[in-house]
């Protein structure tokens, strides 16, 4: 599956200088990744001082503030909770649906096509659809929940401190579970059929086949899906921006949203510090994951 080829003969490209081929790419990486990274470090030691209308050096102030700021810890918790819960739910649901629709029957091909549709909707627009559906007065979802008695007649979803995050997560789960389904189905369809046939002949129960054969053979596909989904969940900002703007209070601030919000409050240095923290975490975790899960490109 991975495009790892063994180069028996030295390729004719090897004699060539790599510079002309890679220069545009490397320029882009330097200008849009390396420079912003160092600029972020610079900003994290500076802060805009309104009285002087200037960006002044403040030493470690932003970092001290970061680790003593309750809202920051809250948003870190929200980001972690959001990432892990969505990842878990999407993976389990995705695996279930993938096993269900893994078939050569043309009807299931149509279902796979339908499932791709949610993935191309801009997340901000997906958020708007659910904003209408979760509206306290006119929304379909609160109305349904009220009519079956799951929430009281006066309850809301997005204005409720405990439910609001789930109101956001439901959009993510709706939009990105198909992502897991499609990747896992692709993985399932590429598995050889012989081991499964002999397992059935040996009298293995379906759950045993799944545990002992399917899961280990899908290990690489699952790792890639977790990696890419995890990256996007960690940096998610669109849904909370549209649905709750971080509210009620600070209940649904994610790191990215809190960073953006500080930026708009002209706390440029502090906003950059939060985004830098979030960047460093994902770079370490992401690269460690690639290393330990042996994901290869």
């Amino acid at each position: 599956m991975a495009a790892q080829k063994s180069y028996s003969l030295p390729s004719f490209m090897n004699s060539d200088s790599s510079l002309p081929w890679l220069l545009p790419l490397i320029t882009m990486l330097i200008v849009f990744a390396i420079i912003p990274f160092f600029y972020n470090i610079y900003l994290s030691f500076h802060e805009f001082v309104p009285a002087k209308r200037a960006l002044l050096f403040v030493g470690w102030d932003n970092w001290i503030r970061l680790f003593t700021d309750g809202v920051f810890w809250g948003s870190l918790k929200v980001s972690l909770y959001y990432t892990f819960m969505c990842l878990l739910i999407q993976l389990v649901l995705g695996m279930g649906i993938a096993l269900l629709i893994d078939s050569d029957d043309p009807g299931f091909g149509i279902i796979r096509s339908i499932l791709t549709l949610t993935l191309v909707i801009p997340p901000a627009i997906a958020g708007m659809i659910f904003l209408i559906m979760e509206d306290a007065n006119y929304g379909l979802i609160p109305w349904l929940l009220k009519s079956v008695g799951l929430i009281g007649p006066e309850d809301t979803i997005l204005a409720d401190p405990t439910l609001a995050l789930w109101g956001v997560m439901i959009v993510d789960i709706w939009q990105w579970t198909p992502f897991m389904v499609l990747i896992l189905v692709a993985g399932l369809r590429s598995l050889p059929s012989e081991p499964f046939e002999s397992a059935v002949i040996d009298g293995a129960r379906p759950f045993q086949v799944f545990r002992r054969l399917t899961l280990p053979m899908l290990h690489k596909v699952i790792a890639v899906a977790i990696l890419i989904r995890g990256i996007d969940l960690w940096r998610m900002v669109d849904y909370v921006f549209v649905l709750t703007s971080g509210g009620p209070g600070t209940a649904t601030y994610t790191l990215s949203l809190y960073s953006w919000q500080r930026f708009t409050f002209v706390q440029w240095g502090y906003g950059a510090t939060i985004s830098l923290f979030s960047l460093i975490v994902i770079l370490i975790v992401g690269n460690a994951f690639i290393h330990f899960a042996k994901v290869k490109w």
Partner: protein
Amino acid sequence: MIRKILAFSIALIFIFPIFFLITSSFKNNIDLFSLPPKLFLFDIDFSAYERVFGFSKLLKFDPSYSELYLTSRILDSLIVGIGSSSLTLIIGIYAGYYISRANFKYKNLLIMSILSARMMPLISIAIPLYFVYEKINLLDTYVGLILIHTFINLPLAVLLLKSFFDEVPKQIDENAFIDGASKIKILHKLIIPCAKGGIAVTFILSIIFSWTEFICALMIGQMKIKTIPIQASIMKTIPSWDMMAAFTTISIIPLFIMILMVRKHFVRGLTLGTVKE
């Protein structure tokens, strides 16, 4: 059979919000807010579309009638999407081909950097770039937004194109090289035609991800440039729901058409070329 019914009901759940959005765009303001919701039986009403496109009641085209200049937002998204995808493709083809064919000392480091670029929270790029762009007058320009979207799509494009080039047998270009063709000519005349399907897929996926990108478009575009997701997110207040629905319906239908065109390679694109369908 039970399996099929179950699978179709799951598909219905996933399609429902899209169906809800599209039908909402044809509802008048009474049906839009009625509970229980009128899912199928409602009076079809095109007034939201008339306002989005700027047609007045007499069906005379009048741009000022489109209160929010919504059609020009779609144009903004088109310019940024096509511009950035073209640039992405140009950079990605050369880099992807070289990474696919050559073995060089820092190859793993380069791939790691490309993946790390894909991991960056976009806000951590957008804040510093805001200040850089402010200094060089790129804020609120197409060029500025095209460049940043190019960067966002490059990891996808380079790795996906590499995986497509890997599928073109190496003998083709090595034989041509022995016959004396120049490397750049080999790429242009032989390899690109062989991989044109993959290149088209990369181009379409880049457009899609440029259309859906939010936070950079929000911060770099200010007054003049608003891409579709930004415009949609401002139309939050209840009186503009029907217009929001009409506007977003128009803007996601091209995305649906594009994705159904490349459906076979979509999984491969989402996983940056590692998982093939």
